[in-house]
């Protein structure tokens, strides 16, 4: 295998909590707590987890849309957290994002033309005719028509808007696109169309995706490898096949049991997780999942399990497996 396109090591993002008379920092939310993984060129890495588990923050931290607290993000072997603002700005040509909410992520006062051509302009395409051409091309690539260019976002449906968002992300031929739950706001029927489009585009333009989603069914469809996050930590990471066939972490198992099977005859034991997601301000000691884990042991309450490979390309953070090694 070649060198990874993106390498994330020990990424952390803590949000301070301030309160009291002086607004002192009285605690912090560890939204992303020591997450590491890498992405190969042309690969689609899925990241799943319940809402609030820090997967979106992870995605935005990688792009420095949120400044990480600590860690290392290497893109093509450059630690981008050390780049100056201007260097980072230039690098954004190669790293793009598609947002979850197609309604909120498009400037309501700009025409589609302007929305898509703006990234072209800021990365050096000064000729407006050229830009116009490119916008039409991109619109057609994502399945819209050239005449849509003069309209405003509010004149489009959700799926169409997400297509615009994709066109915008594609504008400068990026190498990596982080897709932050790109279909979760859409109708199910539209979801499939968008997912198909994204897969086509990957092949067409040789893209690499980090695909963030909160349900496994979507990720299953599109990913090569999948990472599972819980309370700011990565708990399992492996190839799609292994994850779906042989999930290791109890949390992954629980998630998988909730995925509806297309074939109603296949009987499946549904694992219902007890309790709520703990307060991220005050996460449980040891393994963060132990409060809800059906298989929790004493050690889980005290020691945080290491995120370690149990098999080839199969990383898990769970004492059940750490013991076996």
């Amino acid at each position: 295998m070649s060198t990874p396109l993106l390498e994330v090591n020990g990424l952390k993002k803590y949000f301070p909590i301030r309160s009291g008379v002086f607004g002192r920092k009285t605690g912090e939310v560890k939204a992303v707590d020591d997450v590491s993984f890498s992405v190969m060129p042309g690969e689609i890495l899925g990241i799943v987890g319940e809402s609030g588990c820090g997967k979106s923050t992870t995605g935005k931290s990688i792009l420095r849309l949120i400044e990480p607290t600590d860690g290392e993000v290497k893109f093509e072997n450059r630690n981008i957290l050390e780049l100056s603002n201007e260097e980072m700005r230039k690098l954004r040509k190669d790293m793009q994002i598609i947002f979850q909410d197609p309604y909120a992520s498009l400037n309501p006062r700009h025409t589609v033309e302007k929305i898509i051509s703006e990234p072209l302009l800021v990365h050096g395409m000064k000729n407006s005719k050229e830009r116009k051409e490119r916008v039409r091309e991109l619109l057609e690539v994502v399945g819209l028509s050239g005449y849509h260019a003069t309209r405003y976002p509010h004149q489009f449906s959700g799926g169409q808007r997400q297509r615009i968002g994709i066109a915008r992300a594609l504008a400068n031929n990026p190498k990596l696109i982080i897709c932050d739950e790109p279909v979760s706001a859409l109708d199910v029927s539209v979801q499939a169309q968008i997912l198909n489009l994204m897969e086509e585009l990957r092949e067409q333009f040789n893209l690499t995706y980090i695909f963030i989603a909160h349900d496994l069914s979507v990720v299953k469809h599109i990913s090569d490898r999948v990472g599972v996050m819980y309370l700011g930590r990565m708990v399992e990471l492996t190839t799609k096949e292994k994850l779906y066939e042989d999930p290791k972490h109890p949390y992954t198992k629980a998630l998988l049991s909730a995925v509806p099977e297309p074939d109603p005859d296949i009987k499946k034991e549904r694992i219902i997780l007890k309790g709520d997601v703990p307060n991220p301000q005050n996460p449980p000691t040891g393994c963060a999942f132990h409060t809800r884990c059906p298989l929790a042991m004493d050690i889980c309450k005290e020691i945080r399990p290491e995120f370690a490979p149990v098999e080839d390309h199969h990383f898990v953070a769970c004492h059940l497996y750490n013991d076996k090694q």
Partner: protein
Amino acid sequence: MKLEETNNQFQEQNLPPHDDNVMDEEETEAVSPWRDGWKQLRKNRLAIIGFAIILFFILVAIFAPLFTSYSYDQQNLADRLHPPSKEYLLGADHLGRDIFTRIAYGARVSLQVGFFAVTGALVFGSLLGILAGYFGRWIDMLISRIFDIMLAFPSILLAIAIVAILGPSLENALLAIAVVNIPIFGRLVRSRVISLREEEFIMAAKAQGMKSGRVILHHILPNSVAPIIVQATLSFGTAILEAAALGFLGLGAQPPTPEWGQMLADSREFIQLAPWTMLAPGLSIMLVVLGFNLIGDGLRDALDPRMKN
């Protein structure tokens, strides 16, 4: 009364997702949010009345010389305090000047004061508000505290103090009014910027690799324009009131400039002899302010229903 007639033009976020191919007919016109606002505004009867009032005063201001055979400073001491008549439509003041003529020329003064004071406050207020809102941290701390302190003084008092420092004149009154209005715009823009900064399309703009300046100019500002316009319209009225108050206290325009507040102050002495001299200037101030308030209300309903309370 259409004050409550909310329209959902700007609440696209709340619309249910459409089917993917709903609006694909080629004929569909490109509808900009501005045009929607204008459409909405045209339906608002009160706003139209407001426009009519302001338009009337603008026309009067422009064509003042055509309405009258007098000049605003032409004295005719023999006719002082002449009651309204054919000769003097609204009567004559204590120097025998035609009040109608002075009101007409006074419209120029008031509208100009309103315009320049609001423009000044808007430009500087927005600038500071953007700086504070976009960059946050100590810049925000500093600017916000300055706004707090300025707002701690009743605006007319602060304006009086500023005029006391600079000396009474129309220009200084205008400057004072602009200064006291800066924090109003500043705060508005700052809070707009802060809420916009969290919006995804701003993050998207950053993700595209845009520079801060471009993000502010092309994304944050255009989306803050609606509330700023509404505030500017309302402030227009307030500024005219404040200018008139300063004029009334003798701190505004200098004679023989026909400033309405000052005309009111002049006529105050003749409340026993010639009460009609007080009517026209007072009514004019009230009408112009009313006009701007009506337009402001209409704009708020049309452009930015969220600002309503």
